[in-house]
């Protein structure tokens, strides 16, 4: 009887421990990237994006990120660049208006949490891993994610623009999310 109770309890436990759902507070939250152009680094920010965040550091198995980014909302502080990025050579927002990242699992690596997922960008879906820093605080939490996306894997900047000695090939993706409990 005691054994049965333990068995039932152990089956029930994972169901009980569901990661908490959060809503993203737009004020104070940013999602962007940095790259280099002609040896100088620049930052880009997306103005429009939405993220569904379920996260519990103690229960990574049930945690999940689902992020959708409106690519045409990109701003990099340079009018020429902002004009070119939505065009067919880069994001091609007419055909592919949004990028989508969804996690497939979380793992611990050297004291850090890594979110493995798939990124769909410009019609290409490939695995991308992001480092996760989660800090609970009064009234919610902050979530920082950082990772590297190889732009040419997704055909962002093809043809002439594929020259990574002019436009860096490894794009750092950075997001800072201000979370409030749902």
């Amino acid at each position, binding site marked *: 009887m005691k054994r049965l109770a333990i068995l039932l309890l152990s089956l029930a436990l994972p169901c009980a421990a569901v990661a908490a759902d959060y809503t993203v507070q737009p004020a104070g939250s940013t999602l962007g990237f940095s790259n280099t*152009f*002609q*040896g*100088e680094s620049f930052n880009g920010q997306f103005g429009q994006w939405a993220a569904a965040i379920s996260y519990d550091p103690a229960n990574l198995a049930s945690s999940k990120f689902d992020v959708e980014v409106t690519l045409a909302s990109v701003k990099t*502080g*340079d*009018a020429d660049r902002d004009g*070119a990025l939505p065009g067919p050579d880069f994001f091609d927002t007419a055909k592919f208006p949004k990028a989508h990242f969804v996690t497939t699992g979380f793992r611990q690596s050297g004291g850090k949490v890594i979110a493995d997922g798939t990124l769909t960008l410009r019609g290409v879906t490939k695995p991308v891993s992001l480092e996760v820093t989660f800090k609970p605080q009064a009234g919610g939490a902050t979530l920082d994610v950082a990772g590297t996306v190889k732009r040419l894997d997704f055909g962002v900047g093809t*043809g*002439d*623009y594929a*020259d990574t*000695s*002019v436009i860096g090939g490894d794009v750092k993706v950075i997001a800072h999310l201000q979370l409030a409990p749902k």
Partner: protein
Amino acid sequence: MSLRSNDRQWGSVAKFFHWVIALGILGNGLFGLLMDLAHSPMQKINWLALHKSIGLTVLALVLLRIAWRWADRRPPDEPMPRWQRLAAQATHGVLYVLIVLLPLSGWWFNSVTGKPLQWFKQFNLPALVAKNDELRDLAHGVHEYLFWFLLLVLVAHVGGALKHHVFDNDNVLRRMLPFGRLRARSPSEGDQP
């Protein structure tokens, strides 16, 4: 031919600076005017990067040239009327100012547009001033019209040199030519021993 200038002609260092900077500025100036022929935005980006790299090289050579000119002696003027000497000196002075200002104005223009400044993909140089979209057209105009002005002054410079070479038969041009042979004597010295 010695490195330094002597009483008769310019030394090889002075000649090197003169001709390399002349070719660099004229070639890069024409290149700059032809930027819009690029058949793609990326080609224009690469052409501009090359134009900026050459311009920076010219600027460095001009500064070295001025330092060398300071340290080197210069051959005395060929015999000529006073007005010609003054005109030549004024032309040289304006040309020196222009070959400094032309690349510097390009650097300023680049800074105003907020674009990176990279030397042949090797290293980056800082902006001279902060990005300022309102100054963009002005800076572009200054940079381009300095080149047109330089061409105008160059007409006087080349015209003067050719006039001395063809009509006066003196060494004004020959003493600056890379492999030029001087005339045995200036005609004005006559045939006296």
